[in-house]
């Protein structure tokens, strides 16, 4: 790792999130790193996902497009959805980076349980009616970004 690499970052995260927590404790419109950990699927969607995928899951079209989640056949696979949330895709930030690696790219860390929760939410709303649910353990078993491959 070079000398301005990720090793610098954990303490930055802790401090800035600590500050934000104090600042926004009285406003339910905003989470912070600390209180985000307590937020479940519906709120993760309404605070984060809908910024791009829109409140109705309808996506959007401009020079490119944000995929429409409502009626998206790819959602048949919870693994596909979970892997997309974990790793990001085409400019979408990864939400599965370890907490100590998010600051370098100002990404946001969601726990495996939260990712399972928001995946289940998306697959059971906007007209989607998939019955099978992902669990935190199942999400934990998927490849995560930012984790070093096992060394011999």
């Amino acid at each position, binding site marked *: 790792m070079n000398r301005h690499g990720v090793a610098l970052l954990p303490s*930055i995260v802790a401090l800035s999130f600590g500050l934000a927590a104090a600042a926004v404790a009285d406003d339910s419109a*905003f989470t912070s790193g600390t209180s985000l950990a307590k937020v479940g699927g519906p709120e993760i969607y309404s605070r*984060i996902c809908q910024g791009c995928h829109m409140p109705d899951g309808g996506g959007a079209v401009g020079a490119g497009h944000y995929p429409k989640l409502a009626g998206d056949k790819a959602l048949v696979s919870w693994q596909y959805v979970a892997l997309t949330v974990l790793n990001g895709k085409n400019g979408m930030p990864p939400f599965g980076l370890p907490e100590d690696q998010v600051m370098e790219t100002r990404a946001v860390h969601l726990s495996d349980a939260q990712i399972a929760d928001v995946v289940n939410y998306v697959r059971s709303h906007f007209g989607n009616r998939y019955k099978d649910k992902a669990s935190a353990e199942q999400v934990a078993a998927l490849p995560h970004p930012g984790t070093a491959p096992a060394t011999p």
Partner: protein
Amino acid sequence: MGNESASSPLSRRELLRMIGVTAGSAALYQAMDSLGVAAESPYKGPIDLQGTPKGASVLILGAGVAGMTAALELRDAGYKVQVLEYNARAGGRNWSLRGGDTYTELGGATQTCEFDKGLYINPGPWRIPYHHQGILSYARRLGVPLEPFFQVNYNAYLHSSTGFGGKPQRYREIKADYQGHVAELLAKATRQNALDAAVTKEDQEKLLESLREWGVLDKNYAYVSSNDASERRGFEKNPGGGLSARPIPSRPTALSDILDSKLWMGIPTGDTFDMQTALFQPVGGMGRIGEAFGRELKSVIRYNSKVTRIHQDDHAVTVNYEDTGAPGTTFTAQADWCLCTIPLPILAQIPMNVGTALSAAIAAVPYASAIKVGLQFKRRFWEEDEQIYGGITYTDLPITNIGYPNTGFFSSGKGVLLGAYIWGLNAMEFTSMTPAERVAKVVEYGSRIHPQYTKEFDNGIAVAWHRSPFTMGCYGMWSTATRAKHYDDLCKIDGRIALAGEHASFIGGWQEGAVTSSLDAIGRLHQLAVAKGETA
């Protein structure tokens, strides 16, 4: 982290931490780069492209700073150039919103800017450091006048929602007091021989002398209320003339209050390489640069053109595009070479026959979430009531900062502030709101720093970059790991196609990254074109 702070002098790590918290991730990222390797622009004057093959052509995708830099230089070098641009205007992220402008974001919400004549907000870049000589040189070549941008204003605020009872503190006071207290402590440690192992006796004398000067300490090396200290932190009553002339010195704030509030984190915002004086802004808004480029290149830019396919073969690059006013109708453009500046989230979705390495690089870079909110007020109360002329107030509230206009000082009538400039999670949350909700929240938070907001607010406009139809994010956020794996692949020419833009630079999020990446790419394209031309 408290342990580290207590046991070691200000380290690189701590400096970065402060910058990250106070100035946002872009500053942090740049600071990391600048502390590690100098992030100074490699711009070394106008590019010299000799020997252009007769009839050679380049198709440029995107009329932002990178695309138009290339178009200008390649045209001047004798290439036949054509530029396709999605928007109905030139500039891309180089953009100012002024009264009467409308902006429709992804999702369909349309805002009309209701600012008074002459007032504007820059949703994208808003400051140019003096060492960004590339973009500065194009401003000069295009006749765009520049004026100072104040990064640091000693009379603006540092604000903690909990420290000092939530009352904003003047930058001047926090800086002077932090410096004074630190100087006093260091002087004490020196005189108690705590530094004997680190500093020679002779140097200790010199150090004490410098600390007294640096921290404005008294003869006993104490930081106390005095006229001298007030020359740094300001007076209780300023010196004047006549019988009411005598100044009353102010009283320093306690070190513990500064530490508890963490306002010390806001002190070094002007110390990073990209934020050091002098900085500049175009007169009339950052968008003046894009507009000037657009006028210069009027005959070669086709607006409202949405690229749908990019295809290369041994002889040419063929691009399909739709007119955004007539979806479904496909047009075709063709050239010998293609310089593609389309932001990566969009480019990743466009069919393009390039190698797997480039494709992987294009898909690997997440784009930052960021928002800016412009607020018009009925009067310039920050100047009239608080004597704040330009610069930035930093806060730990979700709005992060308040940017005061660096122009039009002392003018009567309405004024426009940058009411918020937000990154990360809070930016995602702001993005998830409607534009009206974003503006309302920003006014609500700002009123905790400037109570005048409530009475004086007139109107506002909010740009959330992930809702931008032409970028789908603010800028490419490379991590050390993704840069190591994909950066070179992103920049290498693939057949007849080269990429350029801030995403193909080490000055991410800055216009200088767009300029220097563009010049680098067209220099390499030109070499290829000349080589091909000679063998043809």
